[in-house]
């Protein structure tokens, strides 16, 4: 069965989730949301979500949306908290598993979501900022990364700014990222050196291509595997139950192409809304 790269990434994310875990999800990360929901519908039914949107511990879920993204979480919370409580109490206490999307990542899994190029004061590109990344990566055990568009601009020898702590000599608790998935392959971090290591190539991707698109020298596992493609069931769940709109595709696009896709998705979503499909269980409306 044919699949797209966004689907493969969400499936890889799903496979990193174990049952009974607490998983946290940041904002604007539909590939991660789709992956978590896929895990819940397959091998991890007792996973608990800690959602940035809605600020709640959630067990239930709704299909992904754009204008209606809040439907995924609000009103479904087991326990709703303030973000102050989440940042000070819940995140340190539960140390959830979380996938982050770095703006830049270095060979040891340090990463950057603050700025790229120029100086801090007048950067070439200011990124949105670090969110909770410099807070939790300094103590968490379960940090994972994903990069929807693998390129030398993202995988760099030297970060412009270190907002996410990797396998770094400055670390005093927790551990650096355990895993990274991109549109080209899957990676872990070699225990001794803490350096990024290719462990699996996605079907059709060559080692040479991965190395060419990585801005530093890549370790390669002795037992390099090929990523197992999505199963028919996984694809069916992603396409029909979890994300019929296709919100997950947004992360593989940028600029004007992304905004075009957004307009199309918004139209489709509005149509569904007017047909009541999304309203079925919205008891609050």
């Amino acid at each position, binding site marked *: 069965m044919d699949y797209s790269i966004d689907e493969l990434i969400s499936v890889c994310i799903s496979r990193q989730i174990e049952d009974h875990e607490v998983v946290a999800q940041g904002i604007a990360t539909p590939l991660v949301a789709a992956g978590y929901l896929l895990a819940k519908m397959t091998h991890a039914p007792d996973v608990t979500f800690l959602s940035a949107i*809605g600020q709640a511990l959630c067990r239930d879920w709704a299909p992904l949306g754009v204008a209606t993204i809040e439907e995924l979480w609000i009103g479904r919370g087991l326990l709703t908290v*303030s973000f102050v409580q989440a940042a000070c109490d819940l995140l340190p206490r539960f140390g959830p598993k979380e996938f982050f999307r770095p703006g830049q990542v270095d060979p040891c899994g340090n990463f950057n979501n603050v700025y790229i190029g120029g100086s801090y004061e*007048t950067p070439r590109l200011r990124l949105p900022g*670090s969110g909770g990344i410099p807070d939790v990566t300094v103590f968490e055990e379960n940090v994972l990364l994903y990069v929807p568009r693998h390129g030398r601009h993202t995988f760099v020898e030297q970060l412009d700014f270190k907002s996410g702590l990797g396998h770094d000599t400055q670390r005093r608790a927790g551990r650096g990222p355990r895993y990274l998935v991109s549109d080209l392959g899957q990676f872990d971090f070699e225990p001794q050196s803490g350096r990024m290591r290719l462990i699996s190539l996605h079907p059709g991707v060559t080692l040479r291509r991965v190395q060419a698109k990585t801005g530093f020298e890549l370790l390669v596992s002795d037992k390099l595997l090929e990523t197992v493609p999505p199963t028919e069931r996984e694809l069916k769940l992603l396409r029909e139950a979890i994300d019929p709109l296709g919100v997950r595709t947004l992360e593989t696009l940028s600029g004007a192409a992304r905004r075009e896709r957004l307009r199309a998705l918004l139209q489709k979503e509005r149509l569904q809304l007017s047909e009541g499909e999304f309203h079925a269980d919205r008891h609050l409306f």
Partner: protein
Amino acid sequence: MDKTKSLDEAVLLVQDGDTLALGGMTIYRRPVAFVHALITRDNPPQDLTLLAFTGGFASDLLVGAGLIRRSRTCYFGLETFGLAPMFTQAVREGRLEIIEESEASIACGLRATMAGVGFMPSRAWQGTDMLRVRPDVMTICDPYSDERLTAFPAIDCDVAVIHVLRADRSGNAVLGGNPTIDLELSMVAKRLILTAETVEDELPGPIDLPGLAVTAVVHAPRGAWPTSCYPAYPIDGEAILDYISACNAGQFSNYLLTSWIQ
């Protein structure tokens, strides 16, 4: 106590040099109607410090209109809709000072202010570059473990504006969704303005924000548009895309003047 005021009266509560906090989050429940009225008032305030958990649509308007001197948020963007155009441009051109924050620095800073102490300790930031760009944030030694900890300083706020789903005349309010840091903001702000989809005589409990510290309650139906006000209305994504297009075409000022139709 009846605290209701008109939007025009309420925007006069923001003064030059204030730290202005916006409730809600990114593109959810932002006080957009208030921000628009603030920008278009006679002599809009200058030299503001923006305080928000995340900067988003409303914050980008304020930056674009030139009211903001410095910004303290842990994220500033439009989520799935992309970068915040006026923010990104202002930072690139060195016209906006950033006080780099994270979730923990804002959360700890607000708790310090509520407790009446100068700081709250945290493991956050140690080992990252955050401390380098925030030389004012001190590192202290945990007197029990000798561990190095970050001492996040208390955060002050002159005026906070929070859009809510329902309020009563004395300022008790139900948020509707996304509590974010609104309760804490409401407790540290010296002046507190609510804009509300509906204003009732007296809300029954439970409520999300107590009216005790509220200065003004403004009836502002669809006051969060084009951001969402759950569950009353979702995000108006097309309007946000139109905004981005206008900004990318260098038409921010025209957008404010001509495109403000809901």
